[in-house]
């Protein structure tokens, strides 16, 4: 009961803040507004460049700058046509849609799995105190720097051959190379260090009295995790989900290495990268490709964004 009260009050307060709070106006909301819109405009220039370029044919792209589209509009959908249906005889005979589905099938579990596992680990490292928990936390932080490229070969060997110590088989071969599971697992592994680090920062700042009160009431760690930590961590989980979604969605390296030549599981990004042709001659398609693939992450961003304004992070008051 007390939890609910704590979390809801700030939300209401935050909503009325922009209008009612004189303190925030003091710094000059006009200055803030102008600065933000200036930066937003500067930030949009390259984005706009990609967008306009995607509607131009290659002859125009290479002979005059993309801003000329506003002076001499000469638009074509050829790049989009190539991205959706292939150009002539290219590999996209069934269109781009099946690869979108592959991307979704790869991305959704590759976001859900690491975040669940990371939230559990972050809770354990911040609230189930044991000897060495700090050490483990810093060790996991340091693992962020291990280059993914170095992990590709050992992981593939694990999937196809298992792990052996001499003649003793420690782990049998998993046989998931070329299957979706063979892509989910590496994404999960590579996401964990950053996910645990970010979520730990958040979860460790949840109010101590809440946890202690729950334990006094006889709640186990599992109950505390499910009833208190998980609901309170929604904003942090939402924030990290967006980024993990983006990384997996735009990833090429893991997709190329672990789809192991299986056409049926190739994500849209990897497929579109192939459209440019063997010698990269049709790089102009990539601008259209960038806008076709951006749609899904933007939907995710917009739908998760509302969690940021909720003020649920009230927990960080100590």
């Amino acid at each position, binding site marked *: 009961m007390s939890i609910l009260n704590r979390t809801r009050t700030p939300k209401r*307060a*935050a909503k009325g803040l*922009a209008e009612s709070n004189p*303190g*925030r106006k003091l*710094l000059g*909301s006009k200055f*803030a507004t102008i600065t*933000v819109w200036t*930066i*937003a405009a500067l930030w949009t*220039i*390259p984005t706009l460049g*990609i967008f306009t*370029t995607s509607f131009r044919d290659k002859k125009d*792209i290479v002979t*005059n700058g993309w801003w000329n589209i506003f002076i001499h509009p000469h638009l074509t959908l050829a790049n989009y046509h190539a991205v959706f249906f292939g150009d002539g005889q290219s590999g996209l005979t069934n269109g781009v849609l099946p690869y979108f*589905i592959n991307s979704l*099938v790869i991305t959704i*579990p590759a976001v859900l799995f690491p975040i*669940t596992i990371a939230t*559990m*680990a972050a809770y*354990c*490292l911040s609230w189930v105190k*044991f000897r060495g928990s700090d050490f483990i*936390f810093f060790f*996991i*932080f*340091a693992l962020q*720097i291990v*280059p993914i490229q170095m*992990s590709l070969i*050992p*992981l593939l060997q694990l999937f196809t051959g298992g792990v052996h110590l001499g003649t003793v088989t420690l782990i049998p071969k998993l046989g998931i190379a070329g299957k*979706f599971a063979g892509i989910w697992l*590496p994404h999960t592994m*590579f996401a*964990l260090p*950053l996910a645990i680090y*970010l979520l730990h920062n958040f979860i460790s700042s949840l109010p*101590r009295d809440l946890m202690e009160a729950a334990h006094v009431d006889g709640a*186990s*760690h*599992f109950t505390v995790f*499910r009833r208190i930590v998980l609901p309170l961590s929604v*904003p942090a989980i939402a924030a990290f989900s*967006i980024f993990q979604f*983006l990384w997996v969605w*735009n990833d090429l390296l893991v997709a190329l290495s672990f789809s192991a030549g299986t056409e049926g599981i190739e994500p849209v990004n990897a497929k579109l990268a192939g459209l440019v042709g063997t010698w990269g001659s049709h790089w102009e398609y*990539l601008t259209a490709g*960038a806008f076709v*693939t951006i749609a899904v*992450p933007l939907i995710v961003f*917009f739908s998760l964004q509302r969690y940021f*304004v*909720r*003020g649920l*992070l009230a*927990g960080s008051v100590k």
Partner: protein
Amino acid sequence: MSSFWSANLPKIGQMIAAIAIFLAVLGAIFFIAGRANGKKQKPIAITIFLGPALVLLTFGLVGPAIKTFLFSFKNSYSTKWVGFRNYQWIFTDPDMRIVLRNTILWLVITPLITTALGLILAIFLDRMRRESIAKSLIFMPMAISFVGASIVWQFVYNFADPSQPQTGLLSTIVRHLGFSPTNWILTQPLNTFLLMVIFIWVQAGFAMVILSAAIKAVPADIVEASALDGASGWKQFRSVTFPMVRSTFIVVLATMVVTTLKLFDIVRTMTGGNFGTSVLSNEMYSEVFVRFDTGRGSAMAIVLFVMVLPILIYNIYNLRRERSIA
């Protein structure tokens, strides 16, 4: 269309099944383990909460990290031990000195600028209307796959001979301002800073979103109280808002440091590491995947690892401090 669904529904089914199994197993474990009480409760909880992450990390990252460490003392095909030869080469080769210098430049400049910019944006966004539109525009570069974005950045920095068509944005602006443009990408050390601009363009959205979430969390009553006390904007920021988001600021900064160290696609697509712009991670990629020298590539990975140690130590210090306060 029906053939489309018959080909694709099984995939979706596979995904749903995987998620369902994952959640069911988790739920079952929680249910059973939740029954345990007494002395065993804590070890069981630790095993269940931390176990999966540690197992995955051991096979996914720790194993490869150890392998990389060993490979860094071997030759290009990892067939012979060569002692410290690869490290010696990194620190004595004249081209590598430039690479190390650039890596340090990137490391010092970009995380700070990106995080500071993200913080300013987050604060300003907090006090304006139509926040979500501005936020989305600044966030957009993060969502665009860099393969597509690199094409436009090439057109931003492009410089063509005066006899050829002009497609470079920067050159055109400079020319309209009455100056004569140079070949930006060739001009050292300017070119490294121009590449940093791209990094900041991509990553500022990340810093902004995370810091914005933290600022929203600063309880309104605290802010209001300080406003009633007559605290001015800057003072209020320094004494109330920043201390509240300090730990998040450090987390974002640390994440940016790690992202900077791992960065290679900006350098690779814009210059291929030429013209004195290469960084360690780009060279590492080239050694392993273009020149097939696993020894040198692994040694570079270890050097990168060592470079992240200062920020790791700072994090340890910071966390200890927070714990002692709490």
